[in-house]
């Protein structure tokens, strides 16, 4: 790489890139720019509680030791690719040899803003939400994606009453399929979360006695706090006119090199990398993918003649009501998986002969076996046999069950889902 590196976004992708370059011996100037004044922090823990103790990705002393310049509280406002300059809100310009954009995504704003109505993406968001939850009361979560579902678990553990609203009849099924999704919904039910599924929100009315959440079937929920978790969106307005391709985030080739301009790269949630066959690809909002993309960009920057593309098995995790969910590889929610269930634990496998995707619920060793099988292209039968052999001594007389048919919904779940 020639010249200085400027990284916009002290995200997991941005910090991983800077660290990887240093650990591989890059001695050039590296500047990390972020609009937030906070020392870089990790976002996934924010929906899982305890924002008072954020996980720092990089501290100022560490940055100093590694020779990384942190420009925090500095908002990037534009790029001039011809002059190779990044403009900042304070009017200054940073010249770059290479520019990496790793700003992540922002929470889709609430259509119903107002006091007590939260979104959850940043540390400031998490602190505001927790300040509210510390007073107890009733939290209504609108949107039962992973962040909403995790926050529901956190709030329940803090002693709040929680209602989870989503227009889909089974929100987790969208990611993990119906039968596994139903198991996850059952965790919420058991933890005492009230579910309002298949229902939309029409309006929020702020009144002296609370926030009235009006659902599309006429029901009104009185809330003390509302969390709107309806997804995230790339923030690329500031890049308009730069020559970058901005249809869905920043379009890149399969190595993270931005299309349309030279010497600009993108990594993490904002980046839309082409696939190995050259197809347009899609944005991947995964923490592990952000890390891997950052390591690929580091390798490509250090040796442009041998650019590096991702190859790891994709992994997404969630932590709800003290139980873990891992989604590995290519999971097709429209296809019923092979399921191995062992007491409260479950492994679901997708694929014809060979394993291509898996979901594990609260079963780390099975998850590890599946992850290795996906990487090596092992047959499904091999994983099933290995699990039966490896299985921990049963705590009851019930042997592990192998099922191919969809699991029955539990009675309680059916009741609430109606």
């Amino acid at each position, binding site marked *: 790489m020639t010249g200085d590196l400027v990284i916009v976004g002290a995200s997991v992708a941005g910090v*991983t890139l800077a*660290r990887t370059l240093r*650990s*591989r011996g890059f001695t050039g100037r590296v500047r990390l720019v972020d609009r937030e004044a906070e020392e870089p922090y*990790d976002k*996934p*823990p924010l929906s899982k509680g305890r924002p008072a103790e954020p*996980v720092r990705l990089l501290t100022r002393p560490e940055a100093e030791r590694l020779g990384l310049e942190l420009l925090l509280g500095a908002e990037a406002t534009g790029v001039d690719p011809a002059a190779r300059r990044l403009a900042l809100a304070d009017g200054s310009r940073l010249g770059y040899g290479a520019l990496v954009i790793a700003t992540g995504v922002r929470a889709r704003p609430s259509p119903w803003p107002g006091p007590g109505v939260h979104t959850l993406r940043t540390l400031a968001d998490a602190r505001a939400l927790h300040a509210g939850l510390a007073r107890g009361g009733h939290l209504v979560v609108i949107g039962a994606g992973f962040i909403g579902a995790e926050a529901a678990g956190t709030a329940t553990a803090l002693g709040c009453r929680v209602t989870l609203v989503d227009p889909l009849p089974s929100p987790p099924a969208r990611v993990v399929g119906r039968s596994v999704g139903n198991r996850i919904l059952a965790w919420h039910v058991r933890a005492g979360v009230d579910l309002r599924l298949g229902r939309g929100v029409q309006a929020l009315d702020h009144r002296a006695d609370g926030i009235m959440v009006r659902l599309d079937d006429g029901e009104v929920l009185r809330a003390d706090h509302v969390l709107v978790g309806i997804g995230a969106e790339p923030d690329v307005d500031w890049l308009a006119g730069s020559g970058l391709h901005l249809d869905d985030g920043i379009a890149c080739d399969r190595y993270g090199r931005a299309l349309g301009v030279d010497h600009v790269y993108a990594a993490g949630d904002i980046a839309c990398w082409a696939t190995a066959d050259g197809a347009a690809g899609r944005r991947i909002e995964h*923490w*592990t993918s952000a*890390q891997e993309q950052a*390591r690929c960009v580091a390798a490509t920057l250090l040796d442009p003649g041998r650019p590096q593309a991702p190859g*790891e*098995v994709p*992994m997404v*995790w969630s*932590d709800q009501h003290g139980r*873990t969910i*891992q989604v590995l590889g290519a999971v097709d929610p429209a296809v019923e998986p092979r399921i191995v269930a062992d007491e409260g634990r479950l492994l679901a496998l997708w694929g014809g002969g060979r394993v291509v995707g898996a979901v594990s619920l609260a*079963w*780390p*060793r099975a*998850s*590890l076996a599946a*992850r*290795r099988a996906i*990487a090596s292209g092992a047959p499904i039968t091999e994983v099933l046999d290995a699990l039966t052999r490896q299985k*921990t001594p049963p705590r009851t007389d019930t042997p592990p069950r192998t099922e191919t048919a969809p699991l029955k919904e539990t009675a309680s779940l059916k009741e609430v889902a109606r």
Partner: protein
Amino acid sequence: MPALTVKTDACQGYASCVIAADDYFDIDDDGLVVLLAAEVPEADRERVDRAVRSCPAAALRLEGA
């Protein structure tokens, strides 16, 4: 020599460390990380550091020069 430490109460059993460096990490039947070696020779440092940073639960540390 750099040394590995584990916050076992933070471990959630995601096993990303095992995938990145299975000669240093494993998980037990309860899904908790087990260190197979605590001291990391310089030659392994980058690979083990990457395993440490791949932990979604931030349960691992690699410290010391």
